[in-house]
C-alpha cells in the first residue's frame, strides 16, 4: 500500500522542521519551565502565604494550579502561530502549496497535510511541557499522558479556524491583531493563571466560550485525576467541533485558492 497523500505532504513539513527544532525546544520546553519557575514558584509563594489559595484554588497549591494550564496555553500559542504566517506564506511568499498542487496531490490532501503537521507540532510542544511537569513531584502523574492528548486537541482547535482565515488572506496585517486581541487575552484571562470565577461577571461567560478554557480544564483535571464524565464530554465535544469545522473551512479555502 502506498503512503497516503496527506502523509506525504506532512513529510515535507517534517523535513523542514528538523532543521529548526531548536526553536521549538525554546518555545515548548524552556519557556514553560521558566514560567513555572518564575510564576509557579515565586508568585506561588506569595499566593500560598496569603492563605487564600485553599478556597480559590480548590485545594491545589498555586504551583499545582498553574502547571497544567501551561500545557494548553503553549499548545495554543504554537498552533496559532503555525496557522498564521506559515499558511499565508505557503500561498503568498514561498508558493509551497502551489508547487505541491502541481504534483498529483489534491488541495484537500494538501490542507490535510497542513492539518496533520499542525497537530504534530502542537503535540511536540505539549510533550515538551509535560516533560517539564514530570520533573516536579507535585505535578508528576499518569494523568499527564491523557493531558498530552487534551493539550494537542486544544492546539488543533486553534490551528484549524485560524488556518481557514489565513488561507484567505493576502497580507499578514491581521496576524499581530489576532495575537494581540485573541491569543494574549486568552493567555491572561483563559483560566490558566487563576480561576475564571475571579473574573468580573460579564467576562466569565466569554472565558467559558473560548477553546482555551476548555483545554485548561481538561488538562488540569487530567493531571490531578479529577475528570468527571459529562463535563469532560462537553469540553471534548466543543474542541473537536471547532477543529473539524475549522478544517472543513480551511480545506474549502485551499480548494478555492489552488484551483483558480
Amino acid at each position, binding site marked *: 500500500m502506498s503512503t497516503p497523500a496527506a502523509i506525504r505532504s506532512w513529510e515535507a513539513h517534517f523535513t523542514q522542521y528538523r532543521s529548526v527544532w531548536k526553536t521549538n525546544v525554546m518555545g515548548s520546553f524552556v519557556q514553560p519551565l521558566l514560567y513555572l519557575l518564575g510564576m509557579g514558584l515565586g508568585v506561588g509563594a506569595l499566593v500560598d502565604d496569603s492563605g487564600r489559595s485553599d478556597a480559590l484554588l480548590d485545594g491545589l497549591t498555586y504551583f499545582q494550579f498553574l502547571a497544567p494550564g501551561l500545557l494548553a496555553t503553549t499548545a495554543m500559542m504554537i498552533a496559532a502561530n503555525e496557522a498564521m504566517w506559515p499558511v499565508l506564506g505557503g500561498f503568498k511568499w514561498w508558493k509551497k502549496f502551489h508547487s505541491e498542487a502541481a504534483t498529483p496531490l489534491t488541495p484537500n490532501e494538501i490542507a490535510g497535510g497542513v492539518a496533520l503537521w499542525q497537530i504534530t507540532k502542537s503535540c511536540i510542544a505539549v510533550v515538551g511541557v509535560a516533560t517539564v511537569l514530570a520533573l516536579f513531584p507535585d505535578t508528576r502523574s499518569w494523568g499527564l499522558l491523557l493531558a498530552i492528548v487534551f493539550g494537542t486537541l486544544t492546539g488543533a482547535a486553534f490551528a484549524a479556524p485560524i488556518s481557514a482565515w489565513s488561507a484567505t488572506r493576502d497580507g499578514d496585517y491581521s496576524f*499581530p491583531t489576532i495575537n494581540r486581541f485573541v491569543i494574549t487575552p486568552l493567555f491572561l484571562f483563559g483560566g490558566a493563571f487563576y480561576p475564571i470565577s475571579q473574573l468580573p461577571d460579564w467576562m466569565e461567560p466569554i472565558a467559558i466560550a473560548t477553546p482555551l478554557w476548555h483545554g485548561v480544564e481538561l488538562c488540569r483535571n487530567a493531571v490531578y485525576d479529577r475528570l468527571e464524565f459529562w463535563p469532560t464530554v462537553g469540553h471534548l465535544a466543543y474542541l473537536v467541533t471547532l477543529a473539524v469545522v475549522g478544517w472543513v473551512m480551511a480545506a474549502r479555502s485551499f480548494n478555492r485558492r489552488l484551483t483558480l
Partner: protein
Amino acid sequence: MSLIDVAPLRIVPPQIRHARRPQRMLERQWMVNRAGGWIIFVTGFFEPLFYLLSIRVGFGALVGDVDDGGTLIPYAEFVAPALMAASAMNGAVYESTMNIFFKMKHEKLYDAVLATPMTSGDVALGEILNATLRGAVYSAAFLVTMGALDMTGSWWSILMLPVAVLIAFSFSAIGMAATTFMRSWADFEYVPAVMLPMFLFSATFYPLSSYGDWAWIVQLSPLYHGVATMRGLNTGDLSWAMLAHVGVLAALAVGGLTFTARRIERLLLP
C-alpha cells in the same frame, strides 16, 4: 565646539557624536506610520490594559497585599510599575532587533540611506531613538492605563515616564548592538531566550527578598534596576539607591551606544 563635544561625552565615539541628522530616521518612521502602520501602533495600547486587568482581577485577589520593603501594598500596585518597565524594554528590543534586521537585510533600507549624506552614526542613533520612542509611547499608554485603573500610588509616579524612556533607550542601544552580531533569522531565537528570564526574574512579580541568597543574580539583570526605580517612584517611597539604579541604566545606554557605533560601520559599510 558645541554641546556635543563636552568632555563627559567624549567616551561616545565620533560616529555618534558627529551624527547631525538622526532625526531623519524618525521622520521616515513617521511617514511610514502615517501610511498605515499606525493601526499596529494604536492597538499596542490594549496590551497594557489586558495585562493590568489580569493582574488586578486575577493575581491581586490571590495574593492580596505584598511586603515591599516593610510596607504592605496591594499586589496590583506592586506589579504594575514592573510591567511598565518590562513593556518599555519589550517595545524597544523588538524594534531594535527584529525590525532593524528586517530593514537591514531584506529591505536594504540602510544601503539606500547611506548613499546620501546620512552617516552610519545618523542611522544608528536615529534608529535607537526610533526604538526609544516606540518604547516611550507604550510606556505612556501604560502609565495612563495605570492611572485610569487607580494603580498609581503617588504623584511621583509621573516620573516613571522619563525612567521608562531611559529604560527604552538603554535596551534599544543594547538591542541594536546585539543585532550587529546576528547573521540570520535563526539567531533571533536567542532574543526571547534572554528576554523571558529577564522579564520573569527581575523582581517583577515578587520582592527581591523572595530570592533569598540568590538576590545578587537578580541584581545583575538590567531590567531589575528599571523595576526597582519605577516601583520606588510609584509608591513615592524614594531612596538614594534609586539614583544608583538610574546610573546603571545610563551606563548601559552609553555602553550600548558606544559599542553599536563601533560595529555599525563595519556592518553597513564593508
